[in-house]
């Protein structure tokens, strides 16, 4: 049985919940936006970073019907830029979490299943990479590589996989000693099958839920790196980059004189992150039977 079936059931069970619905709507909205933004953006080329002709006259325009979110320091339409940046957000959040999850899952399960030296070495590596702040990796790449998605994604994945390796390890450790694993070993089932069926199949749900809720953190961290100017190149449609440009170009007084430059991209980051959190929270509660019970102060 594919291990994802219980997960689909879990999602289905939670569809009724209010919070889950909001989270799902936000997530779907951002996903759809990331797909269609280049068709609905009023100035798609400006959204991608093209500086319009006669930009001097269009710099820092206040929000208006022509420019819903105003224009930026180079006279580009902020609305186009912000909605087109949803794609960059989705790409970064999903690829970071997905890649880290895959690597972490493999490392964590192997460390828990094969004891001895394998466990020792993999756990050391996990501990090692967990100890490195992603900003440090981003720094190194910034010094040596061209700016781009790969910088953000690699530097985040380098540290994030260790996080999944650790939680997978903890969950898997609790499972590998259980009798169904022993039974499967005794009947001579291959290790690959045991791992997939009795370890991954059993622990995957809470880890997937964690991954969903981490999508938000990944986005926040990626935006932070872009905001520092360490990741994507200037002009790229990304909320972190837009914020960075807004604040660094206008100096420290940016938000007092041109608040729209700061407000809209940040709002989108907040909304997207919130969407992921709201999506994951009900699932998490559902999975933890202790949280499901009512536990108001009864004595």
């Amino acid at each position, binding site marked *: 049985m594919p291990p994802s079936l219980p997960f689909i059931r879990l999602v289905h069970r939670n569809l009724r919940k209010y919070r889950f619905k909001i989270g799902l709507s936000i997530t779907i909205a951002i996903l759809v936006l990331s797909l269609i933004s280049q068709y609905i953006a009023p100035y798609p080329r400006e959204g991608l970073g093209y500086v319009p002709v006669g930009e001097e006259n269009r710099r820092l325009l206040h929000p208006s019907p022509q420019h819903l979110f105003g224009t930026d320091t180079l006279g580009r339409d902020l609305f186009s830029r912000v909605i087109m940046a949803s794609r960059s957000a989705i790409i970064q959040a999903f690829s970071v979490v997905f890649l880290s999850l895959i690597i972490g899952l493999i490392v964590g399960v192997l460390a828990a299943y094969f004891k001895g030296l394998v466990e020792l070495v993999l756990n050391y590596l996990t501990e090692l990479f967990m100890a490195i702040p*992603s900003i440090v990796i981003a720094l190194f790449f910034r*010094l040596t590589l061209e700016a781009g998605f790969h910088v953000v994604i690699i530097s985040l994945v380098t540290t994030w996989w260790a996080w999944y390796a650790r939680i997978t390890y903890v969950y898997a450790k609790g499972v590998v000693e259980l009798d169904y694993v022993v039974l499967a070993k005794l009947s001579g089932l291959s290790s690959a099958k045991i791992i997939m069926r009795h370890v991954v199949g059993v622990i995957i749900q809470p880890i997937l839920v964690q991954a969903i809720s981490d999508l938000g953190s990944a986005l926040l961290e990626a935006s932070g790196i872009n905001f520092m100017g360490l990741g994507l190149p200037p002009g790229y449609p990304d909320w972190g980059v837009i*914020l960075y440009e807004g604040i660094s170009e206008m100096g420290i007084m940016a938000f007092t004189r041109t608040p729209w430059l700061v407000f809209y991209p940040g709002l989108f980051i907040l909304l997207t992150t919130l969407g992921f959190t709201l999506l994951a929270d009900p699932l998490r509660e559902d999975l933890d039977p202790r949280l499901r019970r009512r536990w108001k102060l009864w004595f």
Partner: protein
Amino acid sequence: MPVSLNYIFKRIILSILVVIGVIVFSYILLLYTPGDPAVKWAGNPRGPEARKAIEMARRELGLDQPIHVQIAQFIYHVFTGNLGLSIAYKVPVSQVITSGFTATLELLVFAYLLAVPLGLWLGIYSALRRGSRFDSFIQSLSVVLASMPTFWLGAIIALISYSTTGFLPYGRVSYKLAASTGFNPITGFYLLDALIQGNYAVFLDALLRIIPPALAISVYPIGVVARVSRTLVAEALLEDYVRTAVAWGVRRNTIIKHFVLKSIIPPVIQISGLAFVYSIVDAMVVESLVFGREGLGSILLDSLHKADFRVTIALAIYLTIFYILVNTIVDIIQASIDPRVKI
């Protein structure tokens, strides 16, 4: 019961191994990423002095020696804080880093002294009033807080504090004021220094400037700690020992104080530690770009702009070591208050 020395010993050994691993990793990155390591180390120098500078960098790194000697040397230099002169500032790298660290650490500690107790209180309080309006408010609030991009929030806080008071919380302290009152930082933690020297004008000034960025930074830990402690209290209330204590006639307040809270403190410390290291990056972003405070963030940006490679590398390494240090300390504290950890 004292935590066994053995656990601390093992934890420290592991941490040292990790630190060494990180240094080796950074050195390998330095050597094997595109470009001549000596040129990088010298900060991509141009002009007549370039050859000399590169030659010196080559000697400093010992590039003519076998790789294991180079690494050993590099590790030695890291531990003795001897990574040469900063190209941009013309002072020892260690000095640059230390000044940045104290500034950022001051901000972080200040923020966490605010955030952890507040988050803990909110979490416990809402857990004890589950289902109340207060609880659902705190629950929604903590979700929003944890989803907030810190730099954005910092900008908004700065905007608000400017538009309400007309005072921009820029920098760490007014240098004019500091100079006129003869303020003399010793530890580098301005708040502490001012207090020790009885320089209340500077203290107040520094305090006013630290509060807005600290608020921005504390939002994430408040959200996290509140959420976690609410869940922990809720779970603790379901424990068999709470049920049994109720049946024995132990009063509600005693149960909450001695049976429930004692059990949630170690995990809360753990979570706060994790959040703390996460917040370092937050602090670096906010302090430099939003609030214009000098600190690790401004050093990082500076070193990047000025191609001060030594500072960048040193910053990366020491930041990582600090990360590990915090993690280790948190683990040890957590282990020493949990009577069950004895290994």
